[in-house]
């Protein structure tokens, strides 16, 4: 396969996605055959662009919060003083993952009301585990002689963390964030069951009115976003790994 082909495919996908969310009308003839009884082929209860941006915003906020908490937790339990909290924090984060997001939504709504908030809570809890696990792996598998040299050079614990441990584990932590983002992108659609403004709204509207075109366009936009973001974060990860002097084997 030619080296430029993947880049070309990515570019085509970006162009297609932007065209679709900004001018969905252009694609009406394509989706029309999927509708029945002269139903609309393009979502007409709100702008697709706005929904896409709100969807991304929800995922972004939840991921940033999950990253901060998960990385802070991983740092804490890999310090000598926090080592005894390692099993506890592991099980806490695991519970966050085993709880179905729908159940979190159901429990959160009475507490914080309908809208974006319960969705953020569900995504946050769901996103913690991959980031925490990866941060833990990164921080506990640092090369021993490099850490020895950092101590021997007279770095304080804080300096070792900032100057050596975090930069060297950055590629692995980024891998966790990437997984978390992709899970959140898909899971966020469920948030629309509790009135969060996400692309799930389009899918749910399609299911309620038996309109396959709505379901498909909602699903496709989410899928395209996931593929592109996964790809982009992978590239950043590879770049960081190279910067950290690690061979990626590619």
């Amino acid at each position: 396969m030619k080296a430029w082909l993947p880049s070309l495919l990515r570019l085509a996908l970006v162009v297609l996605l932007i065209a679709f969310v900004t001018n969905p009308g252009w694609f009406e003839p394509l989706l029309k055959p999927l509708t029945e009884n002269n139903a609309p082929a393009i979502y007409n209860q709100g702008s697709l662009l706005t929904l896409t941006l709100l969807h991304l915003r929800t995922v972004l906020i939840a991921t940033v919060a999950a990253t901060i908490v998960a990385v802070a937790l991983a740092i804490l339990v890999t310090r000598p003083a926090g080592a005894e909290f390692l099993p506890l924090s592991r099980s806490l984060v695991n519970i966050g993952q085993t709880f179905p997001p729908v159940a979190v939504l159901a429990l959160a709504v009475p507490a914080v009301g309908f809208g974006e908030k319960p969705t953020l809570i569900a995504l946050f809890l769901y996103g913690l585990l991959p980031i925490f696990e990866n941060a833990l792996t990164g921080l506990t598998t640092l090369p021993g002689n490099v850490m020895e040299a950092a101590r021997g050079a007279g770095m304080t614990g804080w300096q070792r963390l900032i100057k050596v441990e975090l930069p060297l584990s950055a590629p692995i932590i980024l891998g966790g964030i990437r997984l978390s983002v992709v899970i959140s992108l898909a899971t966020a659609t469920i948030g629309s069951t509790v009135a969060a403004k996400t692309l799930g709204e389009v899918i749910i509207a399609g299911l309620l009115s038996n309109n396959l075109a709505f379901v498909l366009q909602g699903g496709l936009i989410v899928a395209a976003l996931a593929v592109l973001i996964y790809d982009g974060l992978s590239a950043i990860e590879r770049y960081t790994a190279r910067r950290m002097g690690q061979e990626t084997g590619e």
Partner: protein
Amino acid sequence: MIEIEGITKRYDATTVVDDVSMVIEPRTVCVIVGTSGSGKTTLLRMINRLVEPTAGVIKLDGNDNRSLPGYELRRSIGYAIQGHGLFPHRTVAQNIATVPVLLGWDKDRIKARVDELMTLYQLDPQAYGPRYPHELSGGQQQRVGVARALAAEPNVLLMDEPFGALDPIIRTKAQEDLLAIQKRFGTTIILVTHDMEEAVHMGDKIAVMDAGKLVQYAKPEEILARPASAFVETLVGASEKPFRLLSLGRVRDAVEKGTAEGEAIPGDASQRDALAELLWSGRPALPVKGDDGKPLGRVTVDGLVKRAARPA
């Protein structure tokens, strides 16, 4: 001067270093040699307090090494380890500048020092400074590791098997470079190794450790001539002793009057090399030349063989 007084390190029931006392004179090279598990690395790591002793005191120029916080103490002591431990995400220049940056030197002073050390270690600062460690050969990485340890002009340099990962040819060169730099800066070096050859070659004094105890601490000649125990004897290698003794002496010190045929050997070469050359070429004598190329005299097989005998 480094005074180690009654240093003991215990982990639960096991005693790793057992009541070791020794004095290391300033501007000398002290080699600690022993088998693995003898406690030699632990002893070294207690000098810069990477390991805290269970009992005993270590004084650096008269000051207890616990009078400073550990990290400040370590910034004043050079530390080089096996497999160099270079920071893979930092350039060669940034690696060397590690301790000066921690000490808050200004930029110009750091750059001048980094350039000086790189030049000293035959690495062009322009070409190698911006590279990353994984772009260097093993020998170059090792040199950068030592340069990093020397960057903040420490009086004391601790080295834990610094040449362990190098192939024999690069290793000899690295040892020569280190001795040259030690002479230039007057650094006190404490080097840990399991290689008696390296110990005899590098050390002004050798400390032999066995099972946590300091078995013998003496000049190399003394260790070779009068090993304190059967363990030291084994470590020295009975069949190697005469050759190790010869390797300590320079050809210029064994010169006799007279002339000989053939290629001259430089006065700086070791007596062991001279004997090897004589035996290999089947000649009874070799001419010796000084640094300026002028003939100094000759060395003979008989003369060298006498020198290889056990000292009185």
